[in-house]
């Protein structure tokens, strides 16, 4: 019910922004064409603002559009998205002045893949899904079942430290707090870490032999903003365009290193992967490494230097001979 109120406020806010010409575009979410699906709404029209929605399915990290849309933009963000924006500002990709950020405190989004697994049914076979505090209520065939939210939220939502946007012009709704079930959210990574290196390598080899190189992970990532990605470089050709597992793995390893310190663990790469590759097990680990080595968290301070251009004179170097 809270969402409904936020939604109303958001629609009003967005409309006003456009009416007063404070922004050229609004980027937000509207209902999608499938059940429990939202879709990005990028519009110049005041009338469209009535279609803006806020619900537990606003999955897209809309900051990915900021490097593309020209002019002043009013954008709807969740906690993780706001950090992507800060990170883009740090990298001089966008100007803070060109943005009006409408923050939405996000208590976690519902992972439909988990719901499907849990119920053995596909999303379009469910009647209704609602979030009620720490419960999620799902209606199937007229019957209601309750699940703890922690069972159906995205893994990255479970480990989310900053559900309230870090950077905003207006905050719609009250700040929320981590829903956290860190253990559940980290289960996959912990399993991997317990393996021997060879086993881990086998695991990734297996994952990346499924990859079809659709580049959805890269294109959906707000931190992947290169004009020309190294995989498209032909002289020298670093990576074969053919989806051999070796090249797929190399691509993803380097992509992760390139976005180190920019990745906010928004989880989009894993969500969009049509081949169900466990990409977040890479991004999250990188997030942890960066935190552990440099006490750095991506997208927290828009005035800070980007991680890989900054340094301290004494820093971890126990690995250097």
């Amino acid at each position, binding site marked *: 019910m809270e969402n409904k109120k936020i939604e109303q406020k958001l629609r009003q806010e967005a409309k006003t922004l456009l009416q007063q010409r404070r922004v050229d575009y609004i980027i937000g979410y509207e209902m999608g*064409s499938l059940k429990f699906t939202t*879709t990005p709404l990028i519009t110049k029209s005041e009338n469209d603002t009535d279609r803006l929605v806020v619900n537990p399915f606003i999955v*897209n990290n809309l900051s990915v559009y900021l490097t593309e849309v020209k002019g002043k933009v009013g954008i709807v963000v969740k906690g993780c998205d706001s950090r992507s924006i800060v990170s883009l500002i740090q990298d001089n990709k966008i100007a803070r002045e060109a943005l009006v950020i409408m923050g939405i405190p996000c208590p976690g989004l519902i992972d439909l*893949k988990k719901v499907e697994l849990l119920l053995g049914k596909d999303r*379009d076979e469910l009647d209704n899904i609602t979030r009620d505090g720490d419960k999620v209520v799902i209606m199937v065939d007229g019957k209601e079942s309750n699940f703890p939210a922690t069972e159906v939220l995205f893994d990255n939502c479970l480990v989310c430290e900053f559900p309230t946007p870090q950077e905003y012009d207006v905050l719609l709704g009250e700040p929320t707090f981590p829903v956290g079930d860190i253990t559940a959210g980290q289960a996959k990574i912990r399993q991997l870490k317990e393996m021997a290196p060879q086993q881990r390598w086998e695991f990734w080899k297996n994952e990346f032999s499924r990859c079809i190189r659709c580049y*959805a992970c890269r294109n959906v990532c707000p931190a992947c903003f290169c004009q020309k990605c190294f995989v498209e470089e032909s002289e020298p050709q670093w990576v074969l365009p053919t989806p*051999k597992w070796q090249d797929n793995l190399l691509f993803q390893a380097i992509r992760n290193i390139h976005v180190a310190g920019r990745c906010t663990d928004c989880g989009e790469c894993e969500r969009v992967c049509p081949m169900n590759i466990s990409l977040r097990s890479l991004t999250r680990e990188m997030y942890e490494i960066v935190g552990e080595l440099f006490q750095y968290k991506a997208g927290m301070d828009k005035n800070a230097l980007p991680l890989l251009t900054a340094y301290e004179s004494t820093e971890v170097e126990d690995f250097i001979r």
Partner: protein
Amino acid sequence: MINNKKINKRDIGNLLNEWSQEFTVFVPLRESGVAMLSKWDGKDTGFMDWHRNTVQPIKANFFPPMEEMFSFQKGKEGYHIELPSSDEHKQLIFGIRPCDARALIILDMTFKDLYEDPYYLPKRNNMVLIGLGCTNPYDSCFCTSLGINPGESADVDLMLTDMGDQFLIEEITEVGKELIAKASRVEEATEADEAEAREVKEASYNKVTRKIDTEGIKEKLLSCFEDQDFWEKVSTKCISCGICTFLCPTCYCFDINDELVRRQGTRFRSWDSCAFPVYTKMPMENPRLEKWRRVRQKVCHKFEFYPMNFDIIACVGCGRCIRQCLVNWDITQTLNSLPTRV
């Protein structure tokens, strides 16, 4: 008139085992969480009660994501080119849906066009298709708008209809007939079975509620082809990934690349996508650099160019591009909102 057959679902495992002697049998499996056609392990028959289509379309069996075209090696006598060994077993694909079966007919047209494709066609000509009617189409399916009945198909060798505990079997081709003639535990279908199957098919047809209007679509697209505003508007949220084209059962674009590892070279062909800017990039210019041009190409290729060249729409309404799209870009919405010329 009626000479359809039926088989009990619990006998399907045996039947597939029999067929495994002669064919490499593929069934829809959800390995690693992605539904795709995989080699049958001889045990898992879960696919019979899972009423949905695969994520990866059947085209991957004949036109795989990557495939070796030939290898080359430099010797004393110069380059030596070798074709990959073609010891491929005849494929039997069980559980293909009517939309995907039709998609193969559409792919055939391109691969047979002018020069025959020596990689796709031999595989395509060396397989048996066992169709399975849908009983539970996705909310993204719109096959009925493209003249496809989710419960029926003439593009397979055998067509199965799910009737709970048993399948009704229609023998579509001679190949299919022969298969059934050799199969054990197949019975004659009764009048009642036929009636039940008809009901199942009708129900499934009615479950497909998403529609597009294909009437005059070629002309409509032609008239709005240069409408940049429209194409810009519909393409805004697209993020130019390859999901919709890679997972499309009728998309066939490919790339050709060489790999050279210590004098041993291989030429591969792999899926490519018109959504990628590099796809059309030339040294000096790129005719489809802008996103709206690429989105327009995708839509028009299917609904305008393919009909112009082959007299058939290159879309079967399987809905994968809608279901899998990470921003829920919906081709049916685009097609239903084409500006009509004033």
